[in-house]
């Protein structure tokens, strides 16, 4: 997934995911890297800098999401499958409980028709394949003009705005 939809535009994704078993062999000084959250949590002082973010699998223990993550430039939540809805909750916890304000990428096996919901839960960047239909995806991001519930994007439910 080399492209990213961000701020309504398609752009190259400068961030590369590093798997746990490749971490030791990756030269983290050059490039922009997303390392496993577990590795970062075990030794945050080693992995510092504007070019280091983390990625989180959807089976990540939500109790391990911390406010210390708020300073990271990028966090990616990697969906194993689109049916795995845990990523939506993890995103909201990062935004609403951990005060995370940086870039939150949706990666992995999510699908286009979840974009509106992903956006509502706090994602603001979406990893896509090179051949993705960007215009169609942008349309899905705007499936609805309003929502009943509060979420990360709108703290007031509709009943407080009616």
């Amino acid at each position, binding site marked *: 997934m080399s492209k990213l939809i961000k701020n309504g535009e398609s752009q190259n994704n400068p961030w590369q995911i590093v798997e746990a078993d490749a971490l030791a062999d990756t030269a983290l000084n050059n490039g922009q890297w997303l390392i496993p959250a577990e590795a970062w949590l075990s030794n945050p002082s080693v992995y510092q800098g504007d070019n280091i973010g983390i990625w989180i699998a959807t089976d990540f223990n939500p109790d391990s999401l911390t406010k210390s993550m708020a300073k990271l430039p990028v966090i990616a939540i990697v969906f194993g499958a689109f*049916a795995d809805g845990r990523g939506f909750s993890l995103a909201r916890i990062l935004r609403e409980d951990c005060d995370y304000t940086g870039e939150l990428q949706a990666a992995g096996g999510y699908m286009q028709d979840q974009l509106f919901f992903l956006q509502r839960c706090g994602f603001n960047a979406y990893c896509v394949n090179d051949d993705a239909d960007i215009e169609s995806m942008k349309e899905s991001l705007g499936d609805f003009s309003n929502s009943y519930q509060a979420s990360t994007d709108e703290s007031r439910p509709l*009943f407080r705005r009616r």
Partner: protein
Amino acid sequence: MYVYDEHDQKLIQERVAQFRRQTERYLDGKLAPEQFLPLRLQNGLYVQRLAPMMRIAVPYGMLNSKQVRKLAHISRYYDKGYVHITTRQNIQINWPLLEEVPDILAELAEVEMHAVQTSGNCIRNTTSDHFAGIAQDEIVDPRPYCEIIRQWSTFHPEYAFLPRKFKIAVSGTVEDRAAIHFHDIGLQLVQKEDGNIGFTVLVGGGLGRTPVIGKVIREFLPEHDLLTYLEAILRVYNLNGRRDNKYKARIKILVNAMGPEAFADAVEAVWLKMQDNPTRLTDKEIKRCKSFFTEPDYAELDDIAEMAEINQLRGDNKAFASWLSYNVHSHRKAGYRAVTLALKPTGIAPGDITDSQLEAIANLADDYSFGEIRTTHMQNIVLGDVRANQLYKLWLKLVDNGFATANVGTLTDMICCPGGDYCSLANAKSIPVAEALQREFDDIDYLYDLGPLDLNISGCMNACGHHHVGHIGILGVDKKGEEFYQVQLGGNSKNAAALAKVLGPAFSRNEVVGAVKTVLDVYLEKRQAEETFLDVYNRVGLTPFKERVYVKAD
């Protein structure tokens, strides 16, 4: 009834447009079938044995006559001219074309209807008591809270891809008619002595393969905390419910695995962070929702005077008298009654009605019941606000339309899933069993003598026919490719919630009616005074029934 404002209307129209685009992408090959699957399910569309099946939402069972006329039109124009009332108060059509579903949704949106989240692993239609707002034993009208839950759960961004489906029921009465012990979340409205309203919260009930009675995790949840607390339950479930095995993915499995106390603690921990956020309900919103469920324009009547002529006719006409006893129900307003339109005449699949019957119902509702119609989880229709002195006139019209079978609450008023005739999940057919039972037990005096009896039939262990909570439950099973039927006894969907126990080895379709007959013979022999079937079962247990049914031939 709730009436859409511009926000509700716009959201539902945007949903139609969204699904139209998704269907087009699917038909163009731009959307993979496995990705289209959850999208069509969350718009009510299954692919069944013979054709797609579409489930249309009837929020907490309330319809107006305009909506019922629209359903008649849809069933006639897009389908084969009949619909099916489900055990969760929704309405299904059996033969829509996938290509036309967006048009059907657009037609529904014209009358403030939809098929949102009637299937799929999301929060489903909230169900309630079909006598809500008119029941004499009502503590608080549940419908405003059902509507609040409907809006909160509609397109909820965090909970559209749960481990499994999720069903909520709300009861506002002393006697539970909403089966709250058998829902993922059951909410019992309570009012404290100081007047404060709240809910007793049950979680982890359900039927299906692993039937479980829900556990109380909160004795009193103040009404303003309803949505934040639901958010917290769903958050715990979404993150911790099993996703590796669909048969172990319902919240009941999680609650059992954690234990109800630990589950309640986990919910409380999440809720502490959420309880004061803007999702907390306001007095204004509760008042706004209550404003849609006020009393219709009732006349002030004297009940005895209203019933004088009716009682005279009752003495002259046995069929009318029986109908009054079984299909007409008390009402909180003097001079009014609720009337059940029985949808279980012999030879018709339980809960099925035709397009012209739907139109007749709409007309009857306009003429006799302030234009409102209710669907019941017993798969019948209720006209909720009939003036008592009109009952005879109404009865004559119900007779003409085939709705006057005076069997409500009796054995032949059975719950029955569509079964193997329609459903691709079923192990066995259920409709022919229902029909065989109706034909065997066609002596109405015998049925009345049996007294109140819930007989529930499911064509497979997914239990859409609620067989576990039937006083007599029948479950279709597959034995080496042949249909067999297991009989269960002693279930109860009300406050004294109980799961039925299996009588013994399953029967062939030819044998099952005889087995039920034997069970009833044992009941009648053992019965003392006014004991119901359930009373006798609870007193004598399973053994006397079992011994007689499985007695060895000499």
